């Protein structure tokens, strides 16, 4: 069954502390080569990182838009310090490009002007989505842990209100955020004197259990899944349920190739099995999981019930 | 997750086989009275157990010559003393010194400290144990006190002495 090719592929905001150079190179390749329709930019995890790359923002936006990609700027998930409140206010004041809000402070600053709802806003259900739509939301990215049955109801409600609906289909899931920086803590420091040690882990710092089982990843104040979400086999179902945008989170793998796999599968050029094979080759040893979607433990990989 | 477990036979007392059987026979009428009285007085206790009304709990006071088998099924209540080697397969086992176990049913003392101190061993279905603990906690006053009061002034005096014993004995942090 061919899937509607109107479904948009998006690239989520980089969660990790990649250097300005690394980001420039990354976005140049994305602009030139990646079959993604929309790209989210901005610092979502740690306000201390923003000064390293925010100067490049105008140029990156221009580069991506020139390549035909729509750009959205995302705000911080955790807003507490003065500089974080100011950064959020500054983004909320922008007339363009679109913005994605990840904290109620951003909603407050934005008022009823159009905005997107990010995955950290906990839009779990139709009542919350309806409320947010009434306050100017044009688009909602659902929380990664929401099971498929709930996604279907939420997506329907959002579509009825004219909102775009986005679900993460690739990359590590954000499992928790905190005021404490766990990267700093692992190195005996605090957030205030972290020395940006998170830069050492471009795909997150691996945590294992004491009997050597990989379990989680640390990224500054964020805790992530060890596995990459992989909802490629579920994309047909997601689209049928009304999801309009599928988000790929940037990981330390060839994201252009990842985007191509998803695009080819979406467009029906490649059967699911072959696409999954390509994805596995790109992601190496990292486990792929889809447990959340199927209402099971997030780390699990549930085999598809019926092939497409 | 819920697999039946057997408690390891453990007999600190000499000639324990005979001693254990004798002790069980001696306490059994008391236990029956106690459990019927508690069941009659606290019906909400059973609803808190939910599906674990049918679970077999073995409570093992390591310093006594027997263990206790509890099945809190309101239709078929079991609360009996058994020699350790005759304890049935259990959904959950709670093991500790008698004073510590007493602490858990006596709301004068905080059972969580006992739980965290490793002096209490829990094996098997942890949810069953959590339900039992929440059920026992939702009782006005104290089950230990209520039980002691069944035996009049001597019962209350014994409980008071036991409370003093575990106050000095277990609070050694």
């Amino acid at each position: 069954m061919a899937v509607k090719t109107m479904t948009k592929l998006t690239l989520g905001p980089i969660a990790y502390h990649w250097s300005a150079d690394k980001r420039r190179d990354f976005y140049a390749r994305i602009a030139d080569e990646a079959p993604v329709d929309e790209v989210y930019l901005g610092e979502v995890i740690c306000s201390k990182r923003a000064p390293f790359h925010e100067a490049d923002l105008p140029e990156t936006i221009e580069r991506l838009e020139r390549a035909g990609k729509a750009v959205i700027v995302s705000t911080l998930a955790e807003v507490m310090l003065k500089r974080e409140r100011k950064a959020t206010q500054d983004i909320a004041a922008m007339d363009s490009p679109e913005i994605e809000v990840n904290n109620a402070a951003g909603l407050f600053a934005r008022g009823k002007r159009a905005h997107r709802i990010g995955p950290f806003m906990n839009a779990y259900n139709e009542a919350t989505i309806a409320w947010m739509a009434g306050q100017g939301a044009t688009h909602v990215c659902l929380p990664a842990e929401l099971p498929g049955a709930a996604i279907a109801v939420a997506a329907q409600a959002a579509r009825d209100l004219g909102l775009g609906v986005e679900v993460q289909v690739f990359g590590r899931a954000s499992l928790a955020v905190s005021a404490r920086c766990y990267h700093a803590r692992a190195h005996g420091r605090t957030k205030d004197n972290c020395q940006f040690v998170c830069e050492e882990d471009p795909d997150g710092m691996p945590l294992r259990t004491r009997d050597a089982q990989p379990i989680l990843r640390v990224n500054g104040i964020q805790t992530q899944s060890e596995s990459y979400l992989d909802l490629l086999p579920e994309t047909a179902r997601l689209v049928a349920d009304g999801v309009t945008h599928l988000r790929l989170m940037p990981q330390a793998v060839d994201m252009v190739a990842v985007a191509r796999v998803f695009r080819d599968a979406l467009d029906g050029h490649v059967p699911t099995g072959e696409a999954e094979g390509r994805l596995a080759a790109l992601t190496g040893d990292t486990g792929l999981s889809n447990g959340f979607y199927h209402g099971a433990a997030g780390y699990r990989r549930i085999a598809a019930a019926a092939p497409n | 997750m819920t697999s039946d477990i057997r408690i390891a036979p453990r007999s600190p007392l000499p000639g324990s086989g005979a001693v254990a059987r004798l002790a069980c026979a001696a306490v059994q009428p008391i236990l029956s009275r106690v459990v019927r009285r508690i069941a009659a007085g606290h019906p909400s206790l059973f609803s808190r157990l939910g599906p674990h009304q049918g679970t077999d709990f073995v409570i093992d006071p390591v310093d006594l010559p027997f263990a206790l088998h509890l099945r809190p099924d309101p239709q078929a209540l079991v609360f009996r003393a058994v020699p350790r080697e005759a304890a049935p397969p259990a959904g959950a086992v709670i093991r500790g010194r008698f004073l510590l176990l007493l602490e858990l049913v006596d709301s004068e003392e905080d059972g969580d400290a006992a739980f965290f101190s490793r002096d209490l061993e829990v094996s098997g279905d942890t949810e069953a144990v959590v339900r039992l603990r929440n059920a026992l906690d939702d009782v006005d006053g104290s089950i230990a006190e209520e039980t002691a009061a069944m035996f009049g002034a001597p019962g209350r005096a014994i409980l008071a002495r036991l409370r003093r014993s575990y106050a000095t004995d277990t609070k050694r942090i």
Partner: protein
Amino acid sequence: MSLAELICPAGTPAALRTAVDAGADAVYCGFQDATNARNFPGLNFTPDELAEAVVYAHAKGTKVLLALNTYPPAGKVDLWRQAADLGARLGVDAFIVADMGVADYIARAHPQMRLHLSVQAAASSPEAIRYYCENFGVKRVVLPRILTIPEIRQIRKEIPCEIETFIFGNHGLMVEGRCSLTNYLTGQSTNMDGVCSPASDVEYIRDPDGSMSSKLAGFTIDRFGADEMAGYPTICKGRYTAPNRPEGYYAFEEPVSLNLSRLLPELIDAGVHAFKIEGRQRSKSYVRGVVTAFRAAVDDIRAGRQANIADLVALTEGQKQTQGAFGTKKWR
């Protein structure tokens, strides 16, 4: 509204009566379902039990706050709406909420009911708090445990609602309402089901040498030597290894308990209206001991006397106390 209210946990009807009798100004509790964030097996109130509890508490001048502080997944919102309708009918004094859809429903369907914003909403800036106050009429915010006293003082000036802070109990470190660690390992959700590291997935494995592992859903969360204190396998309180920490370490937090008793006068001075004692899953004995001690302390402070807090170390998990971020910024 009295100054420095003590907000006390009520996991069961008996615990509620204990808290009321020990001098709580308010008690907070939940139904036996996913609508609250302490959905533990065998805990919480049936509708009849809540009705009786409200009568008991009100007779002694104590308020009852109903926790509806989880996030309904799409398709299941009715459970939360019905819980709110029931709470209003039974005459609870306030709802503690986190989800915007739930807050919106209550604000429209029960506009006379007081709304408190749960720590699950993670509103840690004046702007975020004002969003909830202005849109839903929130009258009190429970601050995330991550603010220092100077920050509390500052926020007080910038928000229109009352402030409630945690003063004692289990130290939650992840920003509440954004944690899906439990769902990742077990398939049950903290945000949607109100469970955290659920007992149904817990296993304690003992080795012949006396050491013990605590596991959740088959993952080893911690290991304890024969002489070490044990803990419940809460994911964020476990020990893990990292490339530069091969020996295993508390990657997120040690199992400590918050205890701000010494900071009480300063917190009252900073403008905090209410103090929340954590522990709906704790025993009556804990509730009695902690509430009694804090009641005495608050009464002392309000009367201008020196407060004398008995040492509550033994009631804390892991036997350690912390003043968390409240005392110093080093905690971050």
